[in-house]
């Protein structure tokens, strides 16, 4: 009888331990969405064709969504990605790709993305800025659950001026091509992203 009670106690303890482990894992990464079936054809800031996310296979991807005419939020998002990039460099980690995708492809040309990167002194070795056709960008945004809606357009010197109300997000995709976590892009906690990337390695 005593032995039976002891076995029962042991079983309950193991079960509790398992539950704690599982709940612990969930709190780190709330998402596990397979993106391997998707391939979006885009262009980077050098005009090279990039298949996203297929070309980044076996790497951890830090991805943000921006438009370069944005004066306030998007530069913060890019700056946060840059801070993560710098932190990982300090830690000797170069197996991470940084990708900022424009949801304003009508204005965000390859040349403009190149200039945007240069102005911010981005280390472009593992940081790409991507643009593409409206159709391709819309499909990608739908998969990544990114919403961007234009406000009123005004004409300044004969050209349209408009801004977006948009999802403010940085996401991380693991080496298997699974979307794992999303952060508020402009207010992201750099240390949290760096630690999460280390856990995914």
């Amino acid at each position, binding site marked *: 009888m005593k032995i039976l009670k002891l076995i029962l106690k042991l079983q309950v303890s193991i079960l509790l331990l398992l539950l704690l482990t599982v709940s612990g894992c969930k709190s780190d990464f709330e998402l596990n969405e397979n993106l391997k079936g998707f391939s979006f054809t885009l262009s980077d800031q050098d005009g090279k064709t990039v298949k996203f996310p297929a070309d980044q296979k076996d790497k951890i991807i830090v991805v943000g969504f921006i438009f*370069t*005419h*944005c*004066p*306030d*939020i998007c*530069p*913060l998002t890019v*700056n946060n990605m840059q801070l993560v990039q710098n932190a990982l460099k300090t830690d000797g980690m170069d197996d991470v790709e940084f990708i900022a995708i424009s949801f304003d492809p009508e204005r965000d040309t390859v040349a403009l993305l190149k*200039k*945007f990167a240069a*102005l*911010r*002194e981005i280390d472009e070795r593992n940081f790409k800025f991507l643009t593409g056709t409206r159709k391709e960008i819309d499909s990608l945004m739908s998969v990544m659950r990114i*919403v961007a*809606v234009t*406000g009123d357009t005004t004409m*300044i*010197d004969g*050209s349209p*001026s408009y*801004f*977006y*109300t*948009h*999802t*403010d*997000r940085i996401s991380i995709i693991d080496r298997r091509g699974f979307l794992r976590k999303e952060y*508020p892009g*402009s*207010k992201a906690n750099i240390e949290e992203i760096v630690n999460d990337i280390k856990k995914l390695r």
Partner: protein
Amino acid sequence: MLNLIIGFLLLTTVAPKVEVLNNWMRPSSKDMNTAVYAKIKNNSDKADTLYSVSSTLAKVTEIHETYDKGGSMGMRKVDFIVIPAKKTFELKPGSHHIMLIKLNQDIQKGKKYTVTYKFRRAGEIKVEAIASEKAVENSSKMHNKK
């Protein structure tokens, strides 16, 4: 005599009614947009109102605020900002800022650019804002035109 000198020195070194400090703006390029940030310190015992900002740097200069609507970020124009007496109002990323729309020139990192703030009581205050990716802590050169 000494008292007179001290009194004179105190009078001449008294802080201006409104100070626009820590001026900075993000680097950007011609035909694009950028945002200007600062700390507006109202030293007076009366509220003051920032009602306009002007600059030759851009085609359009407006006071804006960034808002968060359920995780989506947007911007809208505001007509004025009231700075209460003896308070400091901060124009900062993700909040109120000065929008320079359709720039006439590149804004290069490390360089300084002139912006003029217009207040109901304190008048026009011309400042130099440094182009940087993050806030600067030094006080900028400031000229009160009133």
